[in-house]
């Protein structure tokens, strides 16, 4: 991994409002060309962080460095802000035409009329709203309005694009269409971007790095696969979509793996946990395989448990199956498999998962 100097660096950022510490981040880095997503529950501080980094939220403690240079009071703040662009959850359009809106940032910078025209048309084309250029912003649908807001930001060719839950207020089909377009545009323009979202799938799809936030802090940041498959604590685990989180105690060790006792059952996992140590085991539902009991198939999965289906929740293209096999377990099953196994609530099944699919969070001895 080539270390390029960070495009943005923040040190010892603290935001205090009304006695509450809204943001407490000792160090934050962003590299050029990356797309970083901030995920976390409401009130985690995602919006606060975005607004602080764009110098919109003041005052705050701490320092910001853009390409190594410190951003300070007065003139350099405006200069810095003009290198960024921000898109909010609401389109926040001006009472003028779509063209006028997309051009607004450029007009603020005093760009020439001809150049404005070219840039705006380019963006309208890119976002598929060229045919709307003459329309009043008041007559746009939610999706069209948000596309206009995005076009307005991209027209500025910002060095960093910040997005605060830009797709949250859109209905699913509109959101899906826009995610796809946004993905292409971000890749094609190689824009450095940071966005806050609730949607883990959105984060997985669009970002090159994920940061999980809670209570004003960044709990974990890293490549999506890293964070998703190796959450460092239960909170991160539950937030990134690990459905099965089990607590157990290590009772056996063999080489690089161990066995933990979880509610009376033995679960094998890979890791360094010591005998007697309490561990939290995270198993992603996509890593759990279901088959008809008793399982005759030879599989490399060491963890095979007979159980009973307690609930089936349809999720469109697949189904979420809750089952009990001595401890609660959640599996994802395709519709096809559901039919093949004729799974219904109450049915007996055999669940299995590999020892390597178990993410271990060590809790130490009790």
């Amino acid at each position: 991994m080539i270390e390029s100097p960070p495009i943005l660096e923040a040190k010892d950022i603290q935001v205090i409002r009304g006695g509450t510490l809204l943001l407490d981040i000792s160090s934050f880095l962003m590299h050029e060309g990356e797309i970083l997503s901030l995920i976390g529950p409401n009130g985690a501080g995602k919006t606060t962080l975005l607004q602080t980094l764009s110098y919109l939220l003041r005052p705050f403690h701490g320092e910001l460095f853009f390409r190594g240079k410190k951003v300070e009071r007065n003139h350099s703040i405006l200069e810095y802000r003009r290198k960024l662009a921000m898109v909010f959850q609401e389109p926040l359009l001006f009472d003028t035409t779509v063209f006028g809106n997309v051009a607004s940032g450029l007009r603020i910078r005093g760009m020439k009329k001809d150049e404005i025209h070219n840039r705006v048309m380019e963006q309208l084309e890119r976002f598929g709203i060229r045919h709307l250029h003459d329309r009043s912003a008041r007559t746009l649908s939610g999706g069209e309005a948000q596309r206009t807001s995005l076009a307005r930001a991209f027209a500025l060719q910002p060095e960093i694009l910040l997005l605060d839950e830009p797709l949250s207020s859109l209905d699913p089909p509109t959101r899906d269409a826009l995610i796809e377009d946004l993905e292409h545009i971000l890749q094609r323009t190689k824009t450095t971007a940071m966005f806050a979202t609730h949607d883990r799938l959105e984060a997985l799809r669009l970002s090159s790095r994920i940061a999980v936030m809670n209570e004003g802090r960044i709990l974990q940041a890293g490549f999506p696969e890293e964070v998703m498959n190796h959450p460092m604590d239960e909170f991160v685990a539950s937030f990134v979509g690990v459905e099965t989180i089990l607590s157990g105690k290590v009772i056996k060790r063999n080489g690089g793996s161990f066995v933990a006792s979880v509610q009376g059952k033995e679960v094998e996992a890979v890791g360094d946990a010591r005998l007697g140590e309490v561990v939290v085991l995270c198993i992603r539902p996509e890593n759990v395989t279901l088959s008809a009991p008793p399982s005759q198939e030879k599989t490399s999965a060491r963890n095979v448990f007979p159980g009973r289906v307690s609930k089936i929740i349809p999720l469109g293209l697949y189904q979420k199956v809750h089952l009990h096999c001595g401890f609660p377990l959640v599996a994802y099953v395709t519709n096809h498999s559901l039919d093949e196994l004729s799974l219904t609530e109450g049915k007996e099944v055999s669940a299995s998962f590999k020892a390597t699919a178990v993410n271990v969070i060590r809790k130490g001895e009790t």
Partner: protein
Amino acid sequence: MDLILEGIRKAFWLLITFDPEVMEITLLSLWVSGTATLISLFIGISIGVAVALSRFTGKKIVVSLINTGMALPPVVVGLFVTIFLWRNGPLGFFGILYTPTAMIIAQTVIATPIVMGITLAAIQQLPQKLRLQILALGATRIQLVWILIKEAKLPLLAAIMAGFGGVISEVGASIMVGGNIKGYSRVLTTATVMETSRGNFDIAISLSIILLLLAYFINLILTQIQQRTRPR
């Protein structure tokens, strides 16, 4: 009944033939109230925007003062302006009592809080995040204010219309500080009072028709604004 019909008939005649006295009174009304509204526009909008956008202790008190000012009784304004401009008063040396200038001053004092109050409300009603979005687009403080004013242009227009409407139909302060001097400080409202007391209903009615037309015109604009401002 004849009185009324006769009055209306003569009034139309005065209007259609552009009777010079009626015209003079009308033009003076427009001049005085127009100037007063223009001045109140500058003071009212600038202070209204400033208060709306800033945060300071005592803001609530200032806002209620402005709102109270909107309901200031014109005769009270007339009284205080008269005192100030009285020969022995603090500004008496200007010698402008009983002049159109004094009327402009009084009407400005009446109109300014109206424009200020509505401007304040209009700016505060803009979405909170809009300010952040404008700043995020790289606007300077001045550009921010200008863009917000443009965004609120419809309610601001309503504020100006409300201000103008308030002073064009005002009579108390105008008589007190203007003196209703023929050909000099006589406006639509003050003239109507006088002509009515003299029983010259034809002139009074013609002036009233003009006032009604002006009121209608103002309301027409206000209604257009109201219909065009739909929530986004």
